[in-house]
């Protein structure tokens, strides 16, 4: 067990440090700061719904910034090491490929948590400035957003193992994100088009359902988010599936 986790944690620790030092991480943070504080205008225009407007706008912004970073980081995590040949310096050492992949994924999950925490601190300061203290539901919504970001990250990792460029991995990642927010509707339409129990319907069910993580809708209106344990189990199932698929491809690759 040590020979699996120990190299994974070493790779994760190093990769997390690289993500946090990456200029794109800093740019995402700066951009988030500007957008979050400009949402003051949205709050002003909403007049009697200022709290709702600031909450919705802020949480959505944080999630979108997190999405952009996670898709970029996951798409380039392994491909950048292949292009620069630093992957030779890793795989010529006693580092199993499955540990390396786990370490890379954990690093992106960790960087997503740091980004969300930093943007949440900015947003919370704005809310406090306007007299609206964030409560437990607010932080629960952040937790669900993090689960969504880790799920899309794991999918992009898997996709990056067979695409020929980081750009195509990112494009596929954004498409999956959009489809995932309409997963139940897509399954319904597939069943209508191909018939109940058809191959089309089964394929549509392979799209992850991001509506299960829309906890922010529960802040004022009851939403479709799954209970916490179910959301975590659902995300974990996708992590495991994506990891297994990515590893099956990585173990056969030669560099």
């Amino acid at each position, binding site marked *: 067990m040590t020979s699996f986790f120990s190299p994974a944690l070493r790779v994760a620790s190093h990769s997390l440090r690289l993500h946090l030092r990456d200029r794109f991480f800093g740019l995402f943070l700066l951009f988030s700061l500007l957008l979050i504080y400009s949402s003051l205008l949205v709050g002003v225009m909403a007049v009697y719904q200022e709290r709702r407007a600031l909450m919705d706008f802020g949480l959505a912004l944080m999630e979108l910034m997190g999405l952009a970073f996670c898709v970029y980081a996951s798409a380039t995590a392994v491909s950048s090491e292949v292009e620069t040949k630093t992957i030779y310096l890793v795989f010529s*050492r006693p*580092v199993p490929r499955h540990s390396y992949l786990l370490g890379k994924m954990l690093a992106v999950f960790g960087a997503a948590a740091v980004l969300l925490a930093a943007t949440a601190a900015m947003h919370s300061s704005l809310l406090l400035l306007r007299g609206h203290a964030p409560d437990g539901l607010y932080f629960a919504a952040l937790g669900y957003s993090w689960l969504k970001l880790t799920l899309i990250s794991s999918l992009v990792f898997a996709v990056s193992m067979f695409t020929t460029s980081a750009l195509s991995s990112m494009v596929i990642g954004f498409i999956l994100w959009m489809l995932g927010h309409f997963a139940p509707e897509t399954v319904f339409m597939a069943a209508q088009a191909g018939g109940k129990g058809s191959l089309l319907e089964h394929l549509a069910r392979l799209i992850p359902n991001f509506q299960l993580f829309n906890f922010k809708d529960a802040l004022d209106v009851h939403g479709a988010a799954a209970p916490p344990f179910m959301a975590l189990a659902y995300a974990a199932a996708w992590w495991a599936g994506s990891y297994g698929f990515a590893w099956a491809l990585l173990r056969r690759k030669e560099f």
Partner: protein
Amino acid sequence: MTQSPAVAFDGIGKTYFLPRLGRPLPLEAVRGVTFDVRRGEILGLLGLNGAGKTTLMKLMAGLLSPTSGSVRVLGSDPRDPESRRRTGFLPELPYFYPRYRPAEALAYYASLSGMDRSAAAPAVAAVMAKVGLAPHAGKRISEFSKGMMQRLGLAQALVHGPELVILDEPASGLDPIAIHDMRVLIAGLREEGRTVVLSSHSISELEKVADRVIMLSRGGVVSCVESSAWRGAEGGLEKIFMEAVR
């Protein structure tokens, strides 16, 4: 009792399959290669571009699997973790994370080789002193010259104290002084009892440092020459190589 060779290639072949529309295109990089690397020697691999030098090095480093034949490194399969723990590899034109300082990068690679923090710290300091990077410890890697990057590359190959050191074009892109310094470092590895395999297109460099040279052409071994054959001979290693590959 004679020691087993550091590396033993037996009928090794490696074919790459290049992606094409329809059927992948096979490219035979190495075929039927058989030779040993003796313990404690400096073996040079000499050949033109595309001769198969890098492929053989990657096979030794456990980065590739052979299509045919077998390779043993220090008595084991090179893909075994234990074999890789005892081997150091310097790829051609190594790259390091530009925002790191050299000690940070070396500490990371030392940890990946299985060294814990208490063992890695003195090993990193020692190898930086050995390759002449100690005066530049405070610089970021982005500020390094080409020669310093190659030294750092050599340092990461040595930091965990490997028995076998594989160097792919270690003098590539270096100026004459840096080439001389690299040669002195490599010769020093033999004095320490390590086995070194290095590849080069530079005949003059191999002449000065290698104990034996394997000459490759189009994926096959064309000649194996001891240093006694070229030292003192008219034309030296260059003449032997030209006759072997033409």
